[in-house]
């Protein structure tokens, strides 16, 4: 599948613009401030119904206007078309239309246009906060299965309810009510853990193959799952995960009452990246870190393709300035063999060697194809 045409209205710097893309690599170049990243942002918005830059839909609307819309035409194999429209106005909720039909449940829509995003922000994925790594898994798994996203939404709600209860009821807590929330916490939380385990298993069976394409030395890279309760990642069934979760939850009951917050569950998960069994955080160099992040994004693409049966659009925002020649050519090699990708850059001639590409040049927020 690929995105054929994109129409933006009042989106950031674009009042009304039509952009035509090709299958394959699309290079979006131009000076700073012309809206290159905004184009990627709008594609991501249409795919995941939210921005990667702003948490407030209002901020995306062009100055002095009261709505924005993103309209995309997707072409599948065998000439099958799909049209998706996402719009938001200050006096209405976000609206989503798929082939002119209104979609009420966004979670059932996410994954229809899968995409993988790589920005400079992702360079913090390995070294930064655990929430970055959970978010990496959540965005990916939500696109693999609408069920994951719904479980996640329910789970987050349950954690909030539970935290509120822990905060209020420290003196005279109602054990029956707490158990009613615990039962759901364990149920939804275990399904989330189960899906994460599957993805981590996939990463571990493929990570070396791709990492060593970028590296001169043969290194053993692995991903270790650090859940907040003990599990046996290789063999545990969902029932066993629930049992372990419940057991640990009972054990920390008094700690939770003292801390007044939910301390066990997938919202406290983390991943450790290991190089020859040593922590990447401490032993990885800057260059190795960049390689690892590129590889993680490639694995994300592969996993979504594998599970969703649709190849995600690759969105790469301004990252090529940060990479050296060998990493650039390794990444471009990968992109050349997969469906559609979008690259923003200020330095257009970095990509001169690419034979099969679509050049889009932005100046004064209008478009020149080249």
């Amino acid at each position, binding site marked *: 599948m690929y995105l054929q045409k994109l129409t933006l209205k009042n989106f950031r710097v674009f009042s009304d613009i039509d952009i035509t893309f090709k299958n394959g690599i699309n290079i979006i170049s131009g000076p700073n401030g012309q809206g290159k990243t905004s184009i990627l942002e709008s594609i991501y918005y249409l795919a995941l119904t939210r921005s990667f830059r702003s948490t407030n839909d209002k901020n995306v609307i062009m100055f002095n206007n009261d709505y924005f819309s993103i309209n995309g035409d997707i072409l599948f194999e065998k000439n099958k078309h799909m049209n998706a429209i996402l719009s938001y106005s200050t006096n209405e909720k976000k609206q989503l239309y798929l082939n002119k039909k209104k979609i009420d449940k966004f979670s059932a829509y996410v994954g229809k246009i899968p995409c993988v995003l790589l920005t400079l922000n992702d360079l913090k994925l390995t070294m930064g906060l655990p929430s970055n790594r959970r978010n990496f898994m959540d965005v990916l798994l939500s696109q693999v299965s609408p069920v994951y996203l719904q479980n996640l939404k329910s789970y987050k709600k349950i954690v909030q309810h539970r935290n509120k209860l822990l905060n209020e009821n420290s003196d005279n807590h109602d054990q029956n009510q707490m158990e009613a929330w615990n039962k*759901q916490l364990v149920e939804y939380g275990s399904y989330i853990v189960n899906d994460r385990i599957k993805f981590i298993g996939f990463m571990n069976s493929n990570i070396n193959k791709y990492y060593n394409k970028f590296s001169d030395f043969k290194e053993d890279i692995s991903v270790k799952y650090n859940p907040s309760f003990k599990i046996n990642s290789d063999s545990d069934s969902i029932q066993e995960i629930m049992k372990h979760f419940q057991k640990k939850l009972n054990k920390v009951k008094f700690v939770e009452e003292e801390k007044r917050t939910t301390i066990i569950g997938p919202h406290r998960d983390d991943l450790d990246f290991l190089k020859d069994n040593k922590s990447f955080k401490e032993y990885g160099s800057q260059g190795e870190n960049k390689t690892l992040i590129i590889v993680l994004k490639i694995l994300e693409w592969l996993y979504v393709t594998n599970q969703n049966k649709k190849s995600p659009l690759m969105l790469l925002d301004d990252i090529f300035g940060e990479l050296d020649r060998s990493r650039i050519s390794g990444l471009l090699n990968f992109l050349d063999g997969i469906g559609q990708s979008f690259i923003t850059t200020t330095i257009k001639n970095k990509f001169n060697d690419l034979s099969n590409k679509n050049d889009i040049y932005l100046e004064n927020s209008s478009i020149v194809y080249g």
Partner: protein
Amino acid sequence: MFENENNSLSYLIDQLHRLPGIGRKTAQRLAFHIIKDNIEDASELAHAILEVKSKIRYCNQCFNITESDKCNICNNPGRDASTICVVEDIVDIIAIEKSNEYQGIYHVLGGAISPLAGISPDDLHIKELLIRSQDADVKEILLAINPSTEGEATMIYLSKLLKPYNKRITRIASGVPFGAHLEFIDNGTIGRDIISRRDVE
């Protein structure tokens, strides 16, 4: 324009806007309609609102709405008083009654447990339900509570409290709605549906 002025029109718009499901624009439209209406119609509307407030009360048994002490359903000798259907709200009774499938009586909780919304079990008509459940004539308690995280918590909570009474406790089948696709239903729902599966008739 007129909205910022402190006059009777903007007051009426504010009051209408307060109602659930009435946005600012709808409130305006209603207000202008009332202005164009003749005075008799307008006072009839005002009268209807006041009358409903003075006459409607809650049934002292099930908390449905009524104009006497007990509601029409509790008062109806044709209803099967051995089954109590527990619902969150009065509107749920209307929905179930429309189906014509249920012959028992009701109990309205007045919401679902929600720490975030500040609704604790004490805010709901749970004590009254437990008292009713002690009655030897009551054989079954049917929990017809909305399938949400809050509804589920309420259901788990009630089933714990009701257990000592040794009644049959049931819940309405939930989960996969007619015409839906299984791939879009969350694991929790599917899991529960599989646990509570039944034989094909």
